[in-house]
């Protein structure tokens, strides 16, 4: 502000000069081609594009209400976790043996690091003056390869997840028990549990009214796998996500275990 006109006048004691600049648009005839001012010419068109997008967006919103599954339950071992779709490609990569276990660093740091680091540093890696994609084959080729990889991994993750999902459904409600030893036997709807079982409301919460399974595994044929002492032990001490000490009375546990061991 050192070189102000000697006879500049200011608004009061402020630094704003009293001389007004006219608020008019310059002529665009000097610009090459069909340049136009941002306001209002171009912004009007941009708003039209935005309005079309907004309509599409609202149709999507109204026709597909956003999903909400059951309240988070840390004990639900049957829930197959799935990240949001735009993380699927990273998630899928970690499932492959070459990027998991001992090699997990490759999947979590090295590959994403190189990919995103390279992308971030693209202006310094691709320094040629050419801007056409065909004139910089390395940059274009790498980007296309990365795109194919990302699309493939996303597809593979989704494919695997939906395959798992249908396998789970076919394998009975208890299918998600995963590593738990109780077999994911298909639930038998005609099976009716003994009164001994029906008295145990805390068991029914997870294993179902007729032992058909739910959050916990199906127990309708548990006797085929475990004998009475083993069952009693599971009831007493819990197993996996199953809490210990749900039944306090030892005699009651013994009776129930006896009954369950008879189910084959």
């Amino acid at each position, binding site marked *: 502000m050192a070189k102000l006109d000697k006879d500049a006048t200011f608004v009061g004691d402020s630094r704003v000069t009293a001389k007004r600049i006219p608020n008019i648009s310059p002529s665009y005839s000097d610009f090459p081609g069909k340049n136009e001012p941002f306001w209002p010419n171009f912004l009007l068109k941009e708003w039209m594009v935005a309005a079309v997008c907004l309509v599409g967006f609202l149709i999507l919103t109204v026709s597909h209400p956003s999903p909400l599954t059951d309240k988070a339950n840390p004990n639900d071992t049957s829930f197959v976790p799935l990240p949001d779709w735009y993380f699927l490609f990273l998630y899928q990569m970690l499932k492959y043996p070459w990027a998991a276990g001992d090699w997990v660093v490759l999947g979590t740091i090295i590959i994403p690091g190189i990919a995103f680091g390279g992308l971030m540093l693209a202006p310094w890696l691709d320094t040629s003056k050419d801007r056409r994609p065909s004139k*910089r084959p390395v940059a274009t080729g790498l980007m296309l390869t990365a795109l194919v990889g990302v699309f493939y991994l996303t597809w593979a993750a989704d494919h695997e997840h939906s395959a798992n999902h249908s396998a789970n459904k076919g394998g009975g409600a208890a299918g998600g028990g995963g590593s738990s030893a109780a077999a994911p036997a298909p639930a038998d709807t005609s099976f009716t549990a003994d009164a001994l079982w029906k008295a145990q409301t805390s068991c029914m919460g997870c294993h179902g009214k007729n032992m058909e399974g739910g959050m916990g595994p199906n127990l309708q044929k548990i006797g085929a796998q475990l004998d009475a002492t083993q069952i009693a032990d599971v009831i007493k001490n819990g197993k996996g996500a199953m809490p210990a000490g749900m039944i306090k009375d030892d005699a009651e546990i013994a009776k129930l275990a006896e009954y369950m061991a008879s189910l084959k």
Partner: protein
Amino acid sequence: MLQKMYDWVDERLNITPMWRDLADHEVPEHVNPAHHFSAFVYCFGGLTFFITVIQILSGMFLTMYYVPDIINAYESVKYLQNEVAFGVIVRGMHHWGASLVIVMMFLHTLRVFFTGAYKKPRELNWVVGMLIFFVMLGLGFTGYLLPWDNTAYFATKVGLEIANSVPLIGPYVKMLLTGGDIVGAQTLSRFFAIHVFFLPGALLGLLGAHFVMIRSQGISGPL
């Protein structure tokens, strides 16, 4: 009347240069879909911003009902979804908008990449753009937990396990995000704070830088 009000403010604050700068920056022919339809690829940046604005607005309305604690979070989202007038639409816009913003940003990034627009002198704007990309992914990750349903809980648990497997800093990052040994009350509070305060703050700053740089450099020329 309006003119008088404008003149009154202009006399005191000299806003005309700012206003002319905003209104008069020229839009070149090669980015204008009205002249070349293929120029619609230049719309993705603007659309990303448009959806970001929708995200901010719908998010502000969501916080009017959302309660960030593990007892009430799920119930408040359920109430919002099923009981509140237009709640299902506002939540739907925020939910689907989160995906759309990633899509638009992805397309915008590809446009900039394949037109070589990141080259000198626009290197810094490319870097800021990449940072915006990461902030958006962070917003997606933290926002996913907030409904506190099974999808959210288990996805976050897996995500944090992945973070934990990173050598050296992994366990610290995980501890910073979970705020304890389990994914629980502390985690939800932290994700809420990060999603609603930290990342949007960073995002606004980066967007400001992004736009100031575009304004001072102009849109890259035709290929």
